């Protein structure tokens, strides 16, 4: 099987963010970056399919400046076979621009399966996978939490609100991966060394004009400080009173 996985380099979310002086970007000083967790699960899904189908090849693609090569190498050290960097000065904000650039590259690859993470925590958009599928004219199943592939067809499960969808689809297809599908394997020491020797091609990204622009970024308003109403079951009457009279939610 030929499998492609699109990955994104994202900052660690466990920090207090600062808005840059230009007001439309986040200050990257001191931020630590790594592969998007959802994309790591997508890479793992591809590798598990490769394990089951010897002779398969997993290609990892990322759009962005040269630093994204670190992210591609991480996927290579997990076991992917080759990487492609679509070089661009910055990762565009408009998901359609990213999808178009990725689709242009993916079209030429003859892939049986194209995997994306369901969403990236920085953009928090979750659109690139589905848009790419549409641009490629391929069937798409988004946010899958279980997957089986056999004989050129696949079955997946999607979590809905209070329900689950069981979906069947033919290959080639695009899938976006949700949490719970698998746990990403840690790169082994040998894998890290081998990754250095695997091919990583750099090509210019074909970027179209964006239709979205950021007018400003701001930090959400601080929640007004709350208070501890009391201790133990004895505090319950006071809490209920406050919920009724002050918060008016009861």
């Amino acid at each position, binding site marked *: 099987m030929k499998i492609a996985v699109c990955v994104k380099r994202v900052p660690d979310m466990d920090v207090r963010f600062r808005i840059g002086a230009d007001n439309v970007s986040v200050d990257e000083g001191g931020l*630590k970056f790594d592969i998007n967790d959802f994309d790591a699960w997508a890479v793992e899904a591809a590798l598990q399919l490769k394990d089951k189908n010897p002779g398969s090849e997993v290609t990892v693609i990322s759009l962005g400046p040269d630093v994204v090569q670190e992210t591609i190498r991480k996927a290579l050290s997990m076991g992917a076979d080759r990487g492609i960097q679509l070089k661009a000065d910055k990762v565009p904000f408009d998901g359609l621009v990213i999808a178009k650039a990725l689709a242009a590259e993916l079209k030429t690859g003859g892939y049986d399966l194209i995997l994306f993470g369901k969403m990236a925590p920085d953009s928090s958009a979750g659109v690139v996978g589905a848009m790419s599928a549409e641009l490629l004219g391929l069937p798409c199943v988004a946010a899958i939490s279980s997957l089986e592939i056999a004989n050129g067809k696949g079955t997946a499960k999607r979590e809905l609100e209070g329900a689950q969808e069981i979906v069947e689809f033919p290959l080639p297809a695009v899938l976006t991966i949700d949490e719970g599908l698998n746990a990403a394997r*840690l790169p082994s*020491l040998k894998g890290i*060394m081998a990754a250095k020797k695997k091919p990583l091609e750099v090509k210019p990204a074909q970027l179209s004009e964006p239709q979205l622009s950021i007018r400003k970024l701001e930090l959400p308003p601080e929640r007004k400080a709350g208070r501890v109403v009391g201790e133990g079951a004895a505090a319950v009457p006071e809490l209920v009173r406050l919920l009724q009279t002050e918060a008016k939610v009861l």
Partner: protein
Amino acid sequence: MAERQAKLLPSAHQAPLPLQQLILTEPPDAEAVPMDVLFVGGGPAGLAGAIALARMVKADNEAGGDLGDVQIGVLEKAGALGEHSLSGSAVNPIAFRTLFPELKDKDFPFRRPVDAERVYFLTESRAIRMPTPPTMQNHGNQIASICEIVRWLGEKAEGLGVNIFTGFPAASLFTEGKRVIGVRTTPSGLARSGDPGSGYAPPTDITAQITVLAEGTRGTLSQAYLEWQKVTSQNPQIFALGVKEIWETIKPLDAVVHTLGWPLPRDCFGGSFMYPLSRNLIALGVVVGLDYKRTSDDVHEMLQRMKSHPLFRDLLESGEMLEWGAKTIPEGGYYAIPERRHGDGLMIVGDSAGFVEVASLKGIHYAMQSGMFAARAAFDALKRKDTSSASLKTYDEMVNGSFIAKDLYRRRNMRLAFQESNFYFAGFKAGLMTVTGGALPGGRIHSHDDAEVPREVTPSQPFVPDGKLTFSKLDAVFKSGNATRDDIPSHLIVGPDITPEVAEMYTHMCPAGVYERDGERLIVSPANCVDCKATDVLGPRWTPREGGSGPKYRQM
């Protein structure tokens, strides 16, 4: 009811170093990854060594030498470089200049030069300005974050083709006779029982012609090697525990500040430091010798209490604590350095070898320089195709003839002067040593292993953190970035006869709240551990655990 102890001797309750698991005589796996030179530890010593070696090999190959492809590896237990590195720090740039002669000072990962310095003697309410002792003068030094230094060195190393393996702690040394032939890493994904859980990854075996132990303070494999090969030092190594915080402040700090006195008890060695990293970012902490005299002495609490002193409070009020961390510092100085730091296929560098000068609180430039000397010795050994002890001896010779030995010799009795007597009398002695270049008072002061120093059993003092200026250990550990999984098996070996008094002492000894006393029992929460190693010195022995566990320091 058990008799209450009046005095407690930490060593009586400690387990021995588990040599049988640290020193392996079985051969490595057939699938072992072959390296030529392996640095255990991705701190300043290991990285400087790897960089120096990579450059020497490159230059040699370019000049037509026959070394060919030399695989250099750096093993680091943290998930990413810098995450377990912690220091003050005011750095002497000399090692950077030597390692990177083509770069200028402004290219190095420093925050700002030290200009003004002030030393205070504190009482509970006052701050009395003291003249800065010559040993603490930082003129010409640079304020830096060791995390930033390590990340910067890491980039340089990777650019030179050094293999950096983060998340791979070294668990044991492979040996053949007296020779060290490689390292086994820890497994990951063990369940609390110690059996493989889901996501289990087995240990990796690595062979190396030369292994350089750069494990930092109280290195486990370094201790194991020295004990196994019966290498001694004139005095035992002794340690201080530093607890540090990074604060974002509204008011700027305009000087490097050191304090002595309150809140440290009179018989405690140590003091505090406060450095401006940038206009609104300060690093502050407290450093206290682990030979403290009472079981209730608690270094984390001393730091918290200290912040309420007007000298600190004025700055920190309306600020915010961004990070917290802790680490021990080897303080034995010259006489505590092992008699030899090399063996067949092995060298020991940096803090693991005790190259720290405590009077000036400096260790980073010694660590880097020692790493560079080890690189030189390794390079020569590879060229000669002789990695025996006799061949690697040049490493010790280089260190002995360098400023590392000279500086440490000059200050050789400084810390030890404080071990025996009243702090102020000791201060006078220390002053005398400074002025006379160590000649007076003369002789070697004998020192005691920290664990052999008995402590008075004293009741805990109440400490109520306010969550804004002062913090509980639980809050503090959260701020260290520690996100170790809750069900990790314990890496701590508890010794015999843990009475309630011992348990109580452990709760104060550990800055991260790993130990709690519940009535008569000791409760251990190993996931809280930030690898400071205080426990290894005074309490349950520390052993390597799953890679990526522990703190995630950012700007320490």
